């Protein structure tokens, strides 16, 4: 039969295709490799902080207060004589845990809201998305500040507060492609095959919009880390003496004029991880861009 003229080559599973498309886009946009390497390095450094850190991050040494960087303390010491490098490594754990946890929570809840609003439409959509718009109207820092002030500054509460500030963004991001995918024939075919709404949303819509959500996830991870640092800087972070990057900047601020390194190291750390996550997100965005996909 002539219908078999177009026989394609052997099939590869979808995950592999997605991976190779991602790698292809990464190669086309070399800076995304830089982002990936930095992010992986920071994760490893945070994970193995107890092994790498030259000192205990909480150990105070009154005799070596406010020392500039030298061979004993590579990044200097703070007002209490604690090693800044060690505090930086341990602080990365707080930043990453709060950042990742809040982003994952926001991604799951936000996508759920967005897909439901996009799928059911009508009044439900209007009410839910208006509520999201109201949340979105608050600057995320102010909203986080109010929530942490209400809940109290513990690690869990900060995570919840940051998650709440980014749920509306994920809801918006998930809703738009849901509405597009909903109109496509294979969704109508699913309805004709008597699939339940839940099944159509979970098995047919979600896999088609997930890459887009994931890209926004990596960009919002950077935002979450920034918000966490900002909250800590204001004094609503994880309680001292636990090391956080934002808290380190806050503590170093008092002596910034004669001990610049107190603020410089954590500021650079925040800058580098946010920058790396942003270019990684750009790389992922290129990977799922259908225009580049055709060039397989």
């Amino acid at each position, binding site marked *: *039969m*002539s219908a078999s003229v177009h026989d394609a080559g052997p*099939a590869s599973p*979808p995950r592999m295709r997605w991976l190779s498309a991602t790698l292809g886009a990464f190669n086309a946009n070399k800076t995304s490799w830089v982002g990936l390497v930095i992010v992986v390095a920071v994760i490893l450094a945070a994970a193995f902080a107890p092994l790498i850190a030259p000192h205990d991050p909480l150990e105070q040494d009154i005799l070596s207060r406010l020392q500039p960087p030298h061979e004993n303390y590579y990044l200097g010491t703070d007002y209490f004589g604690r090693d800044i490098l060690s505090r930086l490594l341990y602080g990365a754990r707080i930043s990453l845990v709060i950042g990742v946890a809040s982003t994952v929570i926001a991604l799951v809840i936000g996508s759920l809201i967005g897909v439901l609003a996009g799928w059911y439409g009508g009044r439900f959509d209007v009410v839910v998305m208006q509520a999201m718009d109201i949340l979105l109207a608050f600057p995320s820092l102010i909203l986080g500040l109010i929530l942490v002030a209400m809940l109290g500054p513990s690690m869990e509460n900060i995570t919840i507060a940051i998650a709440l500030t980014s749920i509306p963004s994920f809801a918006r991001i998930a809703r738009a492609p849901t509405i597009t995918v909903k109109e496509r*024939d*294979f969704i*109508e075919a699913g*309805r004709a*095959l008597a699939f339940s709404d839940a099944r159509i949303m979970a098995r047919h819509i979600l896999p088609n919009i997930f890459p887009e959500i994931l890209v926004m996830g990596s960009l919002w991870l950077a935002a979450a880390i920034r918000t966490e640092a900002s909250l800590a800087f204001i004094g609503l972070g994880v309680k001292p003496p636990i090391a956080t990057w934002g808290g380190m900047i806050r503590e170093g601020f008092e002596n910034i004029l004669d001990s610049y390194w107190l603020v410089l190291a954590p500021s650079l750390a925040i800058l580098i991880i946010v920058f790396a996550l942003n270019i990684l997100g750009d790389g992922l965005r290129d990977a799922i861009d259908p225009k580049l996909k055709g060039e397989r």
Partner: protein
Amino acid sequence: MSAPVLSVQNLQTAFRVGGQWRWAIEDLSFDVAPGETVAIVGESGSGKSVTALSIMRLVSETSGRIEGRIALDGRDLLALSEDEMRKVRGNDVAMIFQEPMTSLNPVLTVGYQISEALRYHRGLDKAAAQAEALRMLEKVRIPSAKTRFGNYPHQLSGGMRQRVMIATALACKPKLLIADEPTTALDVTIQAQILELIKTLQDEEGMSVLFITHDMGVVAEIADRVVVMWKGRKLEDAASEQVFNRPVHGYTKALLAAVPKLGDMEGHGRPLRFPAIDAANGQVKGVPTLAADTVKADEAPLLEVSGLTTRFGIRGGILGRLRGRVHAVENLSFTLQRGETLALVGESGCGKSTTGRTILRLIEPTAGTVRFQGRDVTGLGKGDLLDVRRDMQMIFQDPFASLNPRKSVGAAIAEPIVVHGLAKGSDARDRVAELMRKVGLSPDMGGRFPHEFSGGQRQRLAIARALALSPKLVVADEAVSALDVSVKAQVLNLMLDLQAEFGLAYLFISHDMAVVERVSHRVAVMYLGEIVELGTREAVFADPRHPYTRKLLSAVPVPDPARRSLRRELAVDEIPSPIRALDWKAPAQALVEVAPDHFVRQAV
């Protein structure tokens, strides 16, 4: 014979795909004489559109390569600089495309767009260009051209837009007009108008036309000479009469055998299968056989639709008040027996697709009842509805869009079986394999993804998935319209075979009268949401009673070049819109039985 206007010699066009050059056209040569119409005909991937782009040199210089010689009036176009080529385009050669909406700029009035071409190419001043543009609009028979001059493209219908495109193309009196599938996106009555217009304008202007199409009927209507292409090569190049009456190449014979012709079915009581075609040499094997008698006329009807009405509100203004309604489906009544094919035919906007979707309750009806196996579907709750939907399935026009791109086809076919608990694990796998074999595909293809299949294979997959729940009724919404002729014939044969095997009833929604004549038992002609004529296939085609049915039938292009000299009148009427004011009342009309089993809508 005088010197050809266009002479293409040893044309080869290649595109770079993934770092490799692939030939889209290999060694193509043909001539177009002055005043002659040459049709290039072929299926998708035959290189017919690339030929047009090569002549216009619209192939991207970085990813495409053109070799050979393309001479226009003796001047080699491939040797010209890009600046000189720009002067040739529009001035000497003009082109019209399939989709007139995308080829017109949506933010400029049509009058401006035509006069722009005149000012640019012919150096007319503003007033002269406008006067000339208005004359062009009148020339392409646009009614009340003066008001249309200031309209934007979206305010015009598809047929009007194509007329504007033709006016733009003819503005500079080109020697050659290249028309790339100009009527494919249009309804059949509008297609007839546009073909007639092109023929008339060609006589008036004395230009040559290179007409690219996949439709053998259109070829027969318009072409003096036919070039048959297949996979980038020319197979046949001869006068129309010869190609249609004495085709030389096997592929041409196969192509002609696969085209259903209106009137083919005279004297056949049942649907007729298409002849089998040997893929190796394109020879027709054996004679077409009549489908088995599948209609269970003595049983109670499988589907009874009565008074079905579907309307959509149109809201407008600041307060979003109801302004009018689209009367998509108006008071529709018909029945369908087991094993029967009822065709719903009509042009775009007649409500045929809405009818199909309303029966499955993918769209909620405004009024009326749909009884399926004696059960009223319109009153069912959600759970019962899911139950009934198992026995009613749907096949869509675009099989690629109807398959989830992220699911392997095996998983897609298995999903309904597993979800509805019909089989599990290896039983489900066996069932999927059986279904794939039933639709003529190898079960080992189950691990592949939709994009790895051809259009015909995808439609087979969509059919396999629809059959997974062993339905009794299949709503086929333009199921073969997007397929190439030869593939279309195979899929239709498959549908006839499955009907014989499983006793399926089809609600066959289509705009293609020739296909409908071939496969259906009964026909309902729809116009503006209403059935205007309903009867057995023989009665409707042999003895059409309603004026609209007659008009529809006479507009269908017939693959017989002897009819080329026949001229229809240059009609410009449009398909009216089903949008009505809120207080609109339907005229008092009803379906009246004019002969046994033959109903026509008449005033009562």
